[in-house]
């Protein structure tokens, strides 16, 4: 016969004593939440009290009143009599415009410089290294100020602009370039380009399936380009083949007509692009270095060409390393576009600054700034997160 020892009771998880980890955790959290709530209440209480005594009004109703100030450049129609919300909208669109164009240019320039660090030519390597070190070690605000100063001091006055073949004009008023007059034909051409992109995507899918089934690789890049161009051209023909261009010309006082980019916009764009490109170059370099050398050797021993091994072997692996830091750089560029306020480019921060000075509603205006940037940041990270998932290794 064996006597069994009664098993000891395991300690209860929710034993209401200080020795229970659960209870201690609960107490810590309650204390922390209480402290945070107290601080928030204290600040809010002070703010309300201060506002009442200083006679500051609050609320977002001012957004409906007339703004009463002019904005230098805008993508939508706006004048001083329009309400504040429209002024803010103009600012947001200006921010997005410089951020989106900036991101595209930064990606191109940064990638080129990053690849240039591996060039066979020593001068190219040296120049790329020098560029990266120079531009990332100087504050971006200072770079913006310098570009703006260059544009406003060094360039010729608007009545004697430099020009190339009477088509492109460069002066203190900015750059003017010819632009097609927007009409039915251009609209149809744009539609055609979009349709061409869809058709090209279908073609690529088909070519890929065929490659997987038969091992016979069809060319994909040039046919895709051709499809897009041909369909866009057909759209243009269907719209009556319009050829009207809005060509800038030298007036008595300033350059007239064409598509004009102001010096403020150019300074912000150049500053942001040159600064961020230095960081992007480093990101690209790190990504390419992270791919093991054996991968390239294996690819060439399989008979892939240089271009194929870059496209099919190196880039897919490098992209996994590149995408997360690249997202950060895109977000940095978008956030740094807020420095436009220093040189008077009417972005959302600059409009808010004017609105604060006119209405005194600092809390609301700063909340709008933060909301705009938070939304863009979250949207960008969501998109890049989706893309990153696509580029990640499919693990089994």
């Amino acid at each position, binding site marked *: 016969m064996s006597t069994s020892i009664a098993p000891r009771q395991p300690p209860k998880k929710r034993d209401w004593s200080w020795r229970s980890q659960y209870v201690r955790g609960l107490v*810590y959290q309650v204390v922390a939440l209480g402290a945070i709530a107290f601080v928030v209440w204290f600040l809010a209480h002070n703010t309300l009290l201060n506002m009442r005594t200083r006679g500051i009004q609050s609320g977002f109703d001012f957004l409906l009143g007339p703004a009463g100030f002019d904005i230098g450049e805008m993508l939508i129609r706006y004048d001083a009599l329009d309400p504040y919300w429209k002024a803010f909208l103009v600012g947001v669109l200006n921010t997005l415009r410089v951020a989106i164009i900036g991101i595209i240019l930064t990606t191109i320039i940064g990638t080129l410089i990053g690849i240039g660090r591996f060039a066979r030519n020593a001068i190219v390597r040296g120049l790329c290294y020098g560029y990266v070190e120079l531009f990332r070690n100087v504050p971006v605000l200072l770079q913006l100020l310098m570009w703006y100063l260059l544009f406003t001091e060094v360039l010729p006055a608007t009545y004697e602009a430099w020009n190339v073949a009477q088509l492109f004009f460069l002066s203190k008023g900015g750059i003017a370039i010819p632009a097609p007059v927007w009409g039915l034909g251009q609209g149809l051409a744009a539609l055609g380009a979009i349709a061409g992109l869809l058709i090209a995507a279908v073609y690529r899918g088909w070519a890929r399936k065929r490659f997987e089934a038969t091992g016979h690789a069809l060319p994909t890049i040039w046919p895709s380009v051709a499809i897009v161009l041909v369909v866009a051209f057909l759209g243009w023909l269907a719209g009556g083949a319009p050829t009207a261009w809005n060509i800038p010309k030298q007036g008595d006082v300033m350059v007239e007509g064409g598509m004009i980019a102001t010096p403020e916009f150019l300074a912000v764009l150049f500053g942001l692009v040159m600064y961020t490109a230095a960081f992007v170059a480093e990101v690209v370099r790190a990504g390419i270095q992270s791919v093991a050398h054996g991968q390239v050797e294996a690819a060439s021993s399989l008979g892939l060409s240089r271009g194929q091994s870059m496209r099919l072997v190196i880039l897919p692996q490098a992209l996994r390393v590149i995408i997360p830091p690249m997202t950060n750089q895109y977000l940095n560029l978008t956030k740094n576009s807020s420095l436009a306020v220093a040189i008077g480019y009417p972005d959302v921060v600059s409009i808010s600054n004017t609105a604060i000075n006119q209405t005194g509603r*600092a809390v609301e205006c700063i909340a709008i700034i933060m909301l705009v940037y938070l939304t863009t940041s979250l949207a960008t990270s969501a998109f890049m997160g989706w893309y990153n998932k696509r580029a990640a290794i499919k693990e089994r």
Partner: protein
Amino acid sequence: MSATFDPIAPRPAPVRTEGFVPWVRRNLFGDIKSTITTVVIALLAVLYLPPLINWAFVQAVYQPDAEACQAARGSGACWGAIVEKYRLVIFGRYPFDDQWRPLLATALMLGLLVASCTRPLWNKWLVVRWLVVLGAFLVLMGGGWFGLEEVSTDQWGGLPLTIMLASLSIVFAFPLAVLVALGRRSHLPAIRTFCTLYVELIRGVPLISVLFMASFMFPLFMPQGMTIDVLVRVLVGITLFAAAYMAEVIRGGLQAIPKGQVEAAQSLGLSYWQTQRKIVLPQALALVVPGIMNNFISIFKDTSLVTIVSLYELTGSTGLAFNSDADWRPFKIEAYLFITAIYFVFCFAMSRYSLWIEKQLNRSRTR
């Protein structure tokens, strides 16, 4: 039959692959594309370098003589503008006769920063040293003690302000960042959520909006009758901003510590804080020193933003020195080049140090 001795032809000497000429041949004229690139770049250099050198050195005006500068405008740089204005650029509006004080204070601070970068001095005395030097810095800058005349903070400016903002915000942000990083990995949901929210909110908005908040909204937050110096408000803003970024760097270090370390510590009976303090943090922090250094570099550059809320650090004091003076205003670009050089020297040195320390710290891992 007599055998004749037929020497075989001597083999050619091996191709030299070391030395200057083979290097040039390989790196500048390796193949046809490389050769073309070299020639094109050389042509561009021949075209554009001489005028640039001409502008920067040969025809430049070195004397603080506004008329000579005006005459040479367009053909030569005016370095005389810097000779004329350098004290205003470097020290801002600080009283002219007392400018030895910011000079001494900055030298002390820089000495401390350099000393903090040497590993033998990474011990508990580091905190004491920082407190002593910070006290000395503030006394020297602000005055009011030891017979030093009082100088209000709105007269502080230039390089001392830049260095002060950068180093103080990093020093204050560090403990906060450690706590937030631990909080983000905590098992307590409320604390984890709060820390995550803080980090993501701050990282989602630009620094300028935080500075606007410090400048426009902080006065409203305070109890009535209580005013806080704008310098302190901006410092708090930058600190909160820097802490969020640094917390992410430290969290990266925490994630790199194997779970076994924590489990071993727990099985030895160490409490949470003992585990973090004695086991996890020493390993994690050593890993992230280069990352923190990069944080410091970006904060150093970002201090230039306080210009926008009217504090005259290096960038702002340059504007201050040149905007109000019609004689010298055309030569602001030379002044900007001057402070560009200052920023570059600081940031480049720090990034080199960051690379060096990374190698030092990784020495135990390389074999």
